[in-house]
């Protein structure tokens, strides 16, 4: 997974998820809800309290675009690199699970059908080892 572009793999396996969810509009609707949950969660908010909330919010949008099967160019290697500084700060499965929880809850709040939530969750789940640097 690390070398091959995750995007290609997703396109093959989840080609239409992004469209089914409503594309960019769905990401826009979800990003503030998701980021609010993350910031309000004492288990993980310390990772997201960057100097610039706005830049952080844009990165959460990148996360959601990925999870929703949308277009992006991140590789597994990018995920490894992008979270390495967090792994150094102790990022582990508990934190990963918390993010998964908020992803699911955000989509539920937007009345996304369970079946599509499961697909998005599977995409996010597939990055676990890269994100956690294993």
């Amino acid at each position, binding site marked *: 997974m690390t070398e091959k572009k995750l995007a290609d793999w997703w396109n093959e396996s989840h080609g239409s998820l992004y469209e089914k969810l409503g594309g*960019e509009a769905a*990401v*826009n609707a979800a*990003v*503030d809800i998701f*980021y*609010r949950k993350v*910031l*309000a969660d004492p288990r993980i908010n310390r990772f997201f309290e960057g100097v610039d*909330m*706005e*830049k952080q*919010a*844009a*990165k959460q*949008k*990148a996360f959601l*675009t990925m999870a929703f099967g*949308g*277009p*992006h*160019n*991140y590789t597994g290697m*990018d995920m490894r690199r*992008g979270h390495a500084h967090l792994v150094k700060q102790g990022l582990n499965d508990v934190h990963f699970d918390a993010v998964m929880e908020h992803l699911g809850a955000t989509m539920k709040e937007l009345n996304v059908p369970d079946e599509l939530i499961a697909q998005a969750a599977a995409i996010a789940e597939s990055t676990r080892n890269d994100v956690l640097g294993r």
Partner: protein
Amino acid sequence: MTSITYGGNTYPLDKDQSVLDCLVGHGAPVPFSCRSGVCQTCLMRAVRGVPPEDSQRGLKDSLKLQNYFLACVCHPTNDLEAALPQDVVKSLPATVTALEPLNSEIMHVSLECHAPLEYRAGQFINLFREPTLGRSYSLASVPQHDEHLHLHVRRLPQGKVSGWIHEHLRIGQTVEIRGPSGDCFYVPGRPEQELVLIGTGSGLAPLYGILRDALQRGHSGPIRLFHGSRNRAGLYLTDRLRELAREYPNFDYVPCVSGEEPAPGLAAGRAHEIAFMEIPDFKDKRLFLCGHPEMVSAAKRRAFLAGAAMKDIYADPFNVNAAP
């Protein structure tokens, strides 16, 4: 063929190539990450030409209005000259036309630019004492209505630039300024939206500009200004703001003091705490936060958690860097 100019060089844009790929291919130091228009790392500004709408998706209105765009998803059909956000500012001389104390620590400085400066109330300029010693000051003036630039400069103990402005600057003296910069200003549109302005100390400068800009452009929704200081002596323009509140029924002014018993007409507590007490829900409201960096970041977070959309929060933390 479309061409892209950057840093004085012009490059042809290949078919299907993004501005980012073109510039990075030629060694330009444009940062990027997602390459798909979401992370906003590759933010650039068109200084000539108009960027396609598609390349501005997801950007704050005040950035769109200044022709900012995302290079990785920018496929222009007309020539563009692009610059990185920090490279755009112009330098020009300006002459001091007035210096009037607003209170014991804040000075109103009025400047006449030697060439026209296009700006929006609430943006800031950098004012230079020496070629390498400059500081940012926000614009309290409204270009359509005020002839000169207006600044409110708070004097800091041993402040290299603020101290010099208070003690040595004279009417008729010419200084170098650079700018304007910043995206904390009123964008016309949604005139019925509620605006909440929160500032501490000289953080009133941009808010005073934004407030008058919004009123003069016919903003009809409620506008609430919370201005805070430790004590009464730190507040300023109170009479003028009360006058505006009488003149415009949709405008409400709440002066706050946090370090002493408030005199009649003042609220007791920190400006942002009073604002959050009075306004529990920030959904669909537009916010402007200026002044003390800790207040700005605390208020930003709280407003967002209280329902404000990230795109509706405009902020200028007055970071003081002890640099040269």
